[in-house]
């Protein structure tokens, strides 16, 4: 391992420590601001609950437009942009701005969460650290996702979720070097955060058990409804955000305030929509809400978050997404309990599964969504309903909304970031898609050059495989056969002049990328059976690759 790679791993730990510290400070700042601005009651009094989010919205807008223009939105795309566009650069000013404006927004009751800002704060700190230590360009690029994982892990108390999310949604590939750094940063940030705030989980998760196999149908229904709700949320953002952005610039100053006012009015009846809402998720998990309230909270939170997010208020979507799913899951359970009380499990399980469902449907990170619930609940047996529900929600969301939310936001902002979902879903072309039947293009090494030249003249190819001894193959072109014939060597066996193709040969399932690397060595490559290496199943030349139609 090179010295810089070793240093990169050590720096990852340091990034985790600083990200953990910043997330602790961020959480404390949000809580202090909430106490100062809204008071200690969970149901703030009338003038406060209406005025505070609105007036703070004005301050946030002024800060965002005037001082910190890069802090709008959640922070996930900004981290991706740092990786793919700006060589890992995130200004320290953005870190400060994100911290201040997001804390103000969430603390004043805007319906947003602290996780995505924590992710960007972590990425920004890592970027600043990397620049200070003068890391190479490659490491600088990857340092932002490392910091992002650290920030997210500390905010979520969940290192596995953070690592998976960053790999799944930001980096997009599993590379040993980066993975090691991401894991180290995530773990050290969670340890740091727990050092100060303890190891209490975000929610007090009740025990789960499947009451009856038929309950899985209810979870499937939850997936279906969750997919629909996710779709509605993404569509609302997709439609409203660009429209609000197109309004004259002076209106940008009052948009967060209007969102705050609307949320304040909603909070008069449903104070649970204020802020991230983890306490309310905990309440739902412990059966403290009836189904009408659960359903109402699902809808009002969806609308409140749409208002906050589309007006450019800095803050994250993770917590609201989980909130919406939790309330939906609880409502589905409560309704099922009325209809089939004997086969309905504990509501806490539905709340948990609901959280994963909307996470999969809205944020479209299916693997993260499954492992997040397992990690948060500490219960492996919940994985079955989670997988069923999340998969259905994900498929419903994908079916009717082709572009994932973060990709959509990037495109609305005019940034062409790689879509991890599209890359995941892209059809991988294999050797078998391009190889051709070898029969007309194979020659025998024992036959003379003249005889093989006659055979080659009948085939529509420039390159031929020549069978040598015991499964070995050589390659020769029509032009080479002709040249040997012209030199008077036509009676010699072809094996005397042919160049053997170096092993390993290709297999039908291998990727086109790998095949192209092999084709750099030789113009034509035999494709053999994996179980019977002597059995030729095809041949591949560069022309075959060029003729291959692109995947849909």
């Amino acid at each position, binding site marked *: 391992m090179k010295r810089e790679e070793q240093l990169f791993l050590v720096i990852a730990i*340091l990034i985790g420590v600083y990200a953990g*510290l910043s997330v602790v400070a961020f959480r404390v700042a949000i809580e202090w601001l909430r106490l100062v601005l809204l008071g200690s009651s969970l149901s703030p009094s009338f003038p406060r609950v209406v005025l505070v989010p609105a007036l703070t919205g004005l301050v946030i807008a002024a800060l965002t437009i005037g001082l910190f223009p890069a802090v709008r939105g959640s922070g996930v795309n900004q981290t991706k942009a740092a990786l793919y566009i700006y060589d890992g650069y995130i200004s320290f000013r953005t870190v400060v701005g994100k911290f201040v404006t997001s804390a103000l927004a969430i603390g004043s009751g805007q319906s947003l969460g602290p996780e995505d800002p924590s992710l960007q704060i972590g990425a920004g700190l890592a970027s600043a650290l990397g620049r200070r230590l003068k890391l190479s360009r490659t490491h600088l690029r990857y340092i932002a996702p490392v910091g992002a994982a650290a920030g997210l892990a500390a905010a979520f108390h969940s290192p596995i979720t953070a690592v998976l999310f960053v790999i799944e949604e930001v980096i997009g590939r599993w590379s040993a070097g980066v993975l090691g750094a991401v894991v180290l940063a995530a773990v050290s940030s969670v340890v740091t955060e727990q050092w100060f705030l303890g190891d209490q989980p975000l929610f007090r998760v*009740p025990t789960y058990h499947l009451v009856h196999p038929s309950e899985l149908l209810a979870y499937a229904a939850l997936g279906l409804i969750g997919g629909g709700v996710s779709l509605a949320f993404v569509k609302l953002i997709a439609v409203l955000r660009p429209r609000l952005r197109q309004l004259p610039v002076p209106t940008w100053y009052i948009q967060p305030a209007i969102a705050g006012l609307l949320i304040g009015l909603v909070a008069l009846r449903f104070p649970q929509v204020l802020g991230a809402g983890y*306490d309310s998720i905990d309440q739902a998990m412990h059966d403290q809400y009836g189904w009408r309230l659960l359903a109402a909270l699902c809808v009002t939170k969806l609308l409140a978050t749409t208002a906050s997010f589309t007006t450019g208020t800095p803050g994250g979507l993770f917590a609201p997404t989980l909130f919406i799913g939790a309330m939906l899951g609880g409502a589905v359970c409560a309704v099922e309990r009325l209809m089939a009380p004997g086969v309905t499990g504990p509501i806490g399980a539905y709340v948990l599964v609901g959280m994963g469902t909307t996470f999969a449907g809205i944020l479209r990170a299916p693997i993260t969504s499954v492992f997040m619930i397992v990690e948060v609940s500490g219960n492996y047996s919940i994985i079955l309903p989670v997988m069923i529900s999340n998969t259905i929600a994900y498929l419903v969301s994908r079916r009717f909304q082709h572009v994932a939310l973060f990709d959509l936001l990037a495109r609305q902002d005019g940034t062409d970031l790689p879509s991890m979902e599209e890359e995941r879903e892209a059809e991988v072309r294999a050797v078998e898609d391009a190889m051709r039947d070898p029969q007309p293009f194979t020659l025998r090494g024992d036959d003379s050059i003249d005889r093989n030249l006659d055979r080659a003249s009948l085939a529509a190819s420039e390159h031929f495989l020549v069978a040598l001894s015991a499964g070995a193959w050589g390659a020769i072109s029509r032009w080479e056969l002709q040249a040997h014939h012209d030199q008077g060597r036509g009676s010699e066996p072809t094996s005397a002049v042919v160049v053997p193709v170096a092993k390993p040969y290709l297999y039908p399932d291998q990727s086109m990328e790998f095949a192209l690397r092999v084709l750099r060595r030789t113009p034509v490559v035999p494709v053999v059976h994996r179980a019977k290496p002597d059995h030729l199943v095809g041949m591949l030349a560069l022309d075959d690759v060029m003729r291959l139609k692109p995947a849909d």
Partner: protein
Amino acid sequence: MLVGTVPAFAITQIVVNRYRAERQRLALEWSARGQRDLASRPADAVTDFVTAMSYGSDRPTDRLLLARALVASERPAEAKAQLLGLAAEDMANGDVNLELARIAAAGGDVDEAVRYYHAAADGVWAVDAPAARREARIELARFLMSHGQQTKGQAELIGALQLDARETLDIAERVLTLDPYVERLGPRARGQRVRRALAIARARFDRCHDAWAADETVASRLDELRTRLEALEKQRPETFERSVAAVDEGLAVAFDIEKLPPGACGADSSDDRAVAAIASQHATPPR
């Protein structure tokens, strides 16, 4: 950069300590507010306890009080969920099991109520465990009898008295000699038993009256009982043999006096316990 972590940790620690202290203060403040609101404004008490818990107060006391506030706010399902969470952490908790029993009893689920009552009676209690267990068992006996399960109720009642076998036998014998509900009794014998019950009740009443005379709220109740008792004492003995109304009233007064809360009345005699046992078994006078 490494050196910078030391002051960063120190500053963060200071901030977090203040943050924790503030949260703890708020948790206690909201918990105290909840306890104040519990009796008069249970709906507000629910919000108070939820707020206290949101500031990190995961104290079982607050959660139990929240459950009580939920019951008082007529939200039994939510109260039950809260209590089940507590029970999952501390299955033997007497308070929790008793509250669960009451919710089940109010919901008409006899089996579940009995199960939780038993768990409460055998459970762990933080304060005055013997008295709490006895109360739980008496409540169970009352519940069983109100659901027509006399024998089981009787058994629970004997258990509730927490007496040794000799004392239990003594009370059982007294019940046999005092019980006016025995079907084979003639009018005369029944009248005698009613008058005997009234005499036992009079002795207890005098003790209670001396102790509670200063309490205005109880005093009016005692006055009313005294008036009724004195009216009965003026009756001729034959009245209790001939008049069903006199028997009804005689037993009602005797039972009401025996049901007066213990504690201020001094130690109950075996006769008192026997009459109380009879009273707990019979909601209505004999016909």
